[in-house]
């Protein structure tokens, strides 16, 4: 998953805390994956030492990220900035759940 960034490729990384009540269960996971899939960049989400493809619902579910855990969102590509910003916003908005 890791690719050393080429000269024109941007790498953006951000730490975000999961603040919604139930963590990364089905609905937020779906939203996260759907949002990630809207971007061209390669995006990963890391929790502790587990890193998964943000575009893969399987991957996100495997993180089993509970409320309060910190996720590291990393994007590589032309729209890396927008990708990370979108995902961060989604998480901070608590996935529109509450």
């Amino acid at each position: 998953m890791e690719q050393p960034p080429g000269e024109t490729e941007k790498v953006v990384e951000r730490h975000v805390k999961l603040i919604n009540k139930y963590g990364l269960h089905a609905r937020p996971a779906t939203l996260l994956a759907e949002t990630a899939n809207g971007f061209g960049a390669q995006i990963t989400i890391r929790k502790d030492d587990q890193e998964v493809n943000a575009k893969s619902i399987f991957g996100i579910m495997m993180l089993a990220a509970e409320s309060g855990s910190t996720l590291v969102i990393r994007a590589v590509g032309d729209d890396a900035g927008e990708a990370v910003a979108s995902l961060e916003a989604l998480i901070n908005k608590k996935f529109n759940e509450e």
Partner: protein
Amino acid sequence: MEIKKGIPVSPGIAIRRAFLLDTEGHQISKRFIKSGEVEAEIARFDAAIPRARREYEELRKESNPEIAQIFGFHQMMLEDPSMRDEVVRWIQESKFTPEYAVARTFHKKIKALQASRDEHIKLRHIDFHDVEQRLLKALAGGRAQDVRRLEEDVVLIAHDLTPSQTANLATTKVSGFATDAGGRTSHTAIVARALGIPAVVGLGNITSEVANGDLVILDGTHGKVIIQPDEETLREFRAKEKQFIEFERSLTELRHLPAETLDGHPLTLLANIEFPEEIATALENGAEGIGLYRTEFLYVTDPEPDEEVHFKAYRRGVEQLDGRPLVIRTLDLGADKFTEGVLPIEPNPFLGCRSIRLCFVRIDLFKAQLRAILRATAYGPIKIMLPMITSLSEVRKAKVIINDVMEDLHREKVPFEEDVEIGIMVEVPSAALIADFLAAEVDFFSIGTNDLVQYTLAVDRVNERVADLYQPAHPAILRLILQVIEAGRRHGIDVSMCGEMSGEVVYTIPLLGLGLKTFSISPGTIPEVKKVIRSITQKEAVQVVERIFTFSEAKQTDNYLREKAKRIIPQLF
């Protein structure tokens, strides 16, 4: 091409695609593919994904927003590239079938989810399971094939077949059976013979060797199953199939010819049935009447019988027979089918309160059935047959109850046949051994070899461990049969045989030689038994009996009888 050997239990050839059943009646698939199949199997998997996705589309449209969202989630899982990658990797590297690859992929994830401490996350394993099932269904070809709604003719392959599974079959679409387990007398064998289709049992592990949709050749005559036959073998068996069909056709021509030996001794061939609806087929096959109407089905559908329901069934039977005889066997079930009056759990049900014994405890049940039978006697010739009789006192007791019922009917001015014939099944060794006493007080005997063999040889015929001890040709059985027939003859009463043995062509000659005059058999076997009867003389049959009575071992007898029968009707061997 693979050739598997098992026990032949019903003759004939079927060349069809395999349909695998698991123990719950669902399709199962095998695990591995060959290297050359990898590309094709990946393609098959890729084609299944959009099929499953479409199902979710449909479901989302029909559901409320909350549920639709869940299906959306499921759909995302289907579209997840990492899922596809993992499945394809299993197919490519480990040569798994797509089904097995999907199962492995999903199970790993399901286990991971189940290990989560967070309840919400943990619960998601249900969603993963749902997607897995949908994907497997899609792989099975659009929708999981329901064994009740088969679309093409198939050979049914299973570990074993239970009565309830066979009851649900689309029997016109099943061309044959092949099972891992079972023996000559197992349920699969009986149903196959009744349906007139080939069957091979005791194959060991056929369910893991065949995949759904594989072309198989089922040779029920020789006990062989050939998986994915090559061209040459296919040609060979298509020819054999034709020959067998020809043979069966030639048998149907015997339909209207009399069942008599070459030297003109007439025999009576009757049929065994479970529902009145089978009478038409029985008559078509040449039956001259019904020698055993097993009434259990009426009780299985409703343990507390409605006299009217029974009466209607019996009357329907008698009307369809149009003057030919109908022998109705009274309740022959165990206590486990009924809720009051007796303890349902018996440690030894076969030696417990069943059949006639149950009737004496639940006289209300017994009388209801007797009333129905007697009322039906007003419409045609019916005989009453009492099962599991072990002593004369039982016969006398039953007759007292029958008389009570007759008195009731008299009082109610309900018409019935006063002189109805009352006979018994001779299926317990004690009854066979006191046949002379019994013959003096009943109107006929019917030898129930299925149970007679079990009780005499102490064998549970559905127990695979001992099933091959079940030997109708055991000298003990032959001696008992002779004793019963002789007792009947001396007292001038009819003796018929209604067990499986009477329908097996291997035993037709000795039974003739022993003096049996009436055979009551499964309708499908009537033509072949008739063929044997018409091919020998009574004199020869007696000679055969004299010879086999010198044999001390069933095996000797069976080998000898096989040779004899093979010469007359080689197509069945």
